[in-house]
């Protein structure tokens, strides 16, 4: 089942919130002693703040931990700027999100095949909401399996369940 969570993700954000997040990221990069620029773009209904430049790769971190932390903080700053608005900006660096999406889709397909073959439930490692969405989408029309999310907060993970043929 696709959890198209976070309905706020589809609402256009106040430009002031985007500016605040953008300035915050730029200042953070400077404070970190790194060299990268922030560019804002709209992509598939999301506002993406992309860090690019010589040091952008240092802002990703192992499995994206650093870019995810920067994204969380930038969203807190944006939400603070426009009271009552829960911001859901995407922060990216060096095209990491697209690469990660491809990796996750491939992994999901492989796990789907294994699930069908072995007929056993597969529990994935915890993933953030957007990455869970990628996995759900990758397996939405995959014959013979169903996906479900379980657990709370940062422990929320996807269960791939084998479905008997009708």
């Amino acid at each position: 089942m696709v959890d198209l969570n976070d309905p706020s993700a589809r609402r256009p954000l106040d430009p002031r919130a985007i500016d605040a997040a953008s300035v915050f990221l730029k200042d953070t990069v400077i404070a970190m002693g790194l060299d990268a620029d922030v560019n804002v773009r709209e992509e598939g209904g999301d506002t993406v703040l992309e860090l690019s430049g010589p040091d952008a790769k240092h802002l990703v971190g192992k499995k994206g931990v650093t870019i995810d932390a920067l994204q969380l903080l930038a969203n807190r700053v944006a939400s603070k700027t426009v009271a009552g608005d829960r911001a859901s900006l995407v922060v990216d660096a060096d095209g990491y999100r697209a690469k990660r999406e491809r990796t996750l889709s491939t992994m999901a397909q492989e796990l789907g095949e294994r699930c069908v073959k072995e007929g056993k439930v597969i529990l994935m490692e915890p993933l953030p909401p957007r990455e869970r969405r990628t996995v759900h989408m990758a397996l939405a029309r995959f014959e013979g399996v169903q996906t479900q999310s379980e657990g709370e907060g940062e422990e929320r993970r996807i269960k791939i369940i084998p479905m008997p043929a009708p």
Partner: protein
Amino acid sequence: MVDPFLIVRHLARSLVDKPDAVKVSESSRDGAVVIELRVAPDDLGKVIGRRGQTARALRTVLSAATAVSGQRVLLNIVED
């Protein structure tokens, strides 16, 4: 060499409602830099977050910045 003090001060001031109440102090212990962060009582939730999510993000950014130079930095959020 990046200054962990400046990073924490910038991050904390960006998150809270009362930036002027942000106080950051730096000391060293067993070869690690220890940063103590104090904010206005109403702002404590802003730097800690639900289930400590925001505090964890602060520590992640801080260690990404200091890892390059091999510094070890600990961040304590102090509630007075």
